[in-house]
């Protein structure tokens, strides 16, 4: 199961290279549409201008680069989450998704049907998918805030679940399809599993304007802007207190 390239045998049915290019375009168009439709691009550009005008001091290139690095470092460890279970679940999904995505692209573009695929690639692909499933199912059934705090059922499905739901189902069917093609070959059931996998993968990438897929682009941008505002003295937050009022243990 872990050793063969799952995309090697599907080239006749679906040209995977063309499919990946189409999905990349769907994410790009969806993100631009999302920005224009919600006005988030305009909002943040206005906020940037306002904060630049209110800045008490202007930051140099080196300082801005250091803030960008600090933002990347925070995003790399999901430091924005205040609770460790959500942080771990997010890290599993984030790195699992990156691993899964990169190995998919490499296997499809660098190792088409005829070329032998290094075992490490399909192993990493499977590990990435398992990481997404572990973090995703943990989040879906136990950590979703509407489930953990707002009384919703663990099986509740809503608009906010479009991204995580389609990701989990897509990855689950990718693993099932890979398992079936390895164990029983390409039977009708294998092709049905492949069809479901492609349907939910397409849903994941095409639903960008309605899902929170684009958060992976917006969140670091907002975090960086906030750091710049803090450093240039125009943050709207109060100054930290100079006194400590905790006098008893």
């Amino acid at each position, binding site marked *: 199961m872990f050793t063969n390239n799952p995309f090697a045998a599907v080239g006749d049915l679906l040209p995977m290279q063309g499919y990946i290019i189409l999905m990349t375009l769907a994410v790009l168009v969806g993100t631009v549409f999302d920005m224009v439709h919600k006005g988030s691009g305009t909002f943040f550009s206005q906020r940037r201008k306002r904060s630049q005008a209110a800045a008490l001091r202007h930051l140099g290139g080196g300082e801005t680069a250091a803030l960008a690095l600090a933002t990347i470092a925070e995003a790399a460890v999901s430091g924005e*989450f205040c609770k460790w279970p959500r942080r771990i679940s997010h890290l599993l999904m984030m790195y699992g998704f990156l691993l899964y995505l990169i190995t998919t692209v490499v296997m499809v573009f660098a190792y088409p049907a005829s070329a032998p695929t290094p075992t490490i690639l399909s192993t990493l692909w499977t590990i990435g998918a398992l990481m997404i499933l572990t973090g995703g199912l943990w989040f879906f059934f136990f950590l*979703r805030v509407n489930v953990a*705090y707002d009384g919703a059922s663990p099986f509740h499905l809503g608009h906010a679940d479009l991204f995580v739901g389609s990701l989990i189902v897509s990855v689950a069917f990718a693993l099932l399809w890979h398992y079936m093609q390895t164990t029983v070959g390409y039977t009708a059931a294998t092709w049905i599993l492949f069809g479901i996998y492609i349907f939910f993968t397409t849903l994941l990438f095409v639903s960008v304007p309605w899902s929170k897929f684009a958060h992976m682009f917006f969140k670091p941008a907002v975090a960086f802007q906030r750091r710049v505002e803090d450093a240039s003295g125009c943050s709207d937050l*109060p100054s930290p207190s100079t006194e400590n009022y905790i*006098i008893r243990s």
Partner: protein
Amino acid sequence: MPTYTDMSRCDGCGECVDICPSDIMHIDPVYRRSYNIEPNFCWECYSCVKACPQNAIDVRGYADFAPLGHKVRVLREPEKGVISWKIRYRDGRLKEFAFPIRTTPWGSIKAAQDYGKPDMSALSSQLLAHEPEALHIDALPTIKRA
């Protein structure tokens, strides 16, 4: 001044939903971030402001306190036991002040179930629950009759 959530700061941890005594802090079904579903019913207790670890909950000031175009922001520092406020008026003036909110570390107050079960003799005692140790004194003062 009812509260509202700055969704770009909220990370959807649910602390405000848990603590709101009026049960008006809920989770947005589209963005999965908290929001105040009915500001008219807000008791203005600011429990959610004090509980939010991301400083994501602010208040919308009334016109006589901070006229339109203003901004009220709150910074929570549980490690110092203080909540600080900053008001930016529409003419650009700033006002900042800090309120001490407690003198013991956050999370240090024990819940009732964490104490031992009292025995029946407690019924005839003048002392209230956890007295006098909760008052940080050895014994309650008494009136000495001449």
